[in-house]
């Protein structure tokens, strides 16, 4: 995992997001920011980090998707998650929890969060037609386009 300091710019921008509770009308929905890309997706209520990324057409390294293998661990850089199902100590140890390691297939955000994928892993788009990862859209389309680029930060809902 790379250190937080490498993403200072993005984190500064995120600082207000990650410490605030959800706004009115979007009860219990939380932003998940994936570093270093700065890409953002929204996790629905009770939705896991993996569930939110998958629903947005994003793919990264995962295993059993049921909390048994630990392949989908990510670094929780900012924010908090909770686990609604028991997790085996052999999969996610107390020490790892303290270090901010997060089992993404079981972790449900309870604040806005920022995560960083494992070293060597990368985010892939499997719904390229729905969420094109190309140049920024022409001026004037930004307001209505959910995939508008904003420097390195994007929003996918």
């Amino acid at each position: 995992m790379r250190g937080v300091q490498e993403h200072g710019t993005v984190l500064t921008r995120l600082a207000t997001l990650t410490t605030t509770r959800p706004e009115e009308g979007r009860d219990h929905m939380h932003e998940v920011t994936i570093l270093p890309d700065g890409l953002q997706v929204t996790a629905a209520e009770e939705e896991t980090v993996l569930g939110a990324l998958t629903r947005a057409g994003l793919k990264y390294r995962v295993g059993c998707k049921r909390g048994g293998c630990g392949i989908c661990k990510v670094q929780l850089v900012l924010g908090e998650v909770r686990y609604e199902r028991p997790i085996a100590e052999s999969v996610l140890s107390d020490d790892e929890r303290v270090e901010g390691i997060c089992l993404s297939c079981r972790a449900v955000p309870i604040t806005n969060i920022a995560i960083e994928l494992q070293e060597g892993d990368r985010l892939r788009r499997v719904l390229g037609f729905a969420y094109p990862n190309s140049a920024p859209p022409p001026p004037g389309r930004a307001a209505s386009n959910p995939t508008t680029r904003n420097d390195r930060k994007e929003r996918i809902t």
Partner: protein
Amino acid sequence: MSVMRLGYVHLRVTDLEEARHHYSNILGMSVVHEEPGKLHLKCWDEWDHHSLVLEEGGVGLVKLGYKCSSDDDLGQFEKRCSQFGATTGRFSRGENMTVGDGVRITLPSEHTLELFSEMEFTGTDTGTINPEAWPRDMRGVGGHWIDHALIAAEDPGLVERFFMECLDFRPAERVVESIEHPEVVGTWMTCGDSPHDLAVIKGPNAKLHHFAYHLEDWGALLRAGDIFSMDDVPIDIGPTRHGITRGTTIYFFDPSGNRNEVFAGLGYRVHKDFPTINWTVDQLAKGIFYHARELNDRFTTVFT
């Protein structure tokens, strides 16, 4: 004198009720005994009392039990395992529900293996007199029986030698580094005439890769895949075919992340004169997933 078959898998699960739903309603096993924190289950086409023990707390394998022909065999196997250098011990009748006296062995791969020769005979759902082809109240996938297990070992060649020398298993197929340098990367071993009763692949000691349910044919396998989609069971890969064993397959995960397989179509029978088939490691992907011919990274990384 022989080991007959895989008799039981004892597995840890993080949530017993979710596991009950998966193994009972989705895979179609019957719960034959329950106590706090533990379930015993069997498939409709199995003769003995149970073939799966689920224990709440953690994930992964507690132990595998293989059924032998007689008590005399147990003593012989125990002696050979001990001479090989493995830690062995005895367990008493009743220590495993309805199972007789047996031998407990710690494999060179640190897995616990139990040998037994008696378990209460409770019969299949179709019985022994003019049986129907299958029970009409079969649930879900309706797996016939637990067929085999694949375990991980840091030195699969050593485990292969252990099973050959101590327990009279034979490698039907194996994956080697190369024909010139036949270091074993994986081995598919039989104690009867099925392509494999136990397989071992290079990986972390004491870990389970999967255990498998026998299905009748490709149609049953496809239907199983449909049920997994209906019930949101995560599929690892399939339906497809293995090059090794020629069996057709779906890998999938239980609610705790333990990998299961449904396996159909015995590719061949392993008679006494069957020569070992060798695959070279550069063809491993084709050996495992015959159609895609590429491994997904989960195959060699996801163990419980």
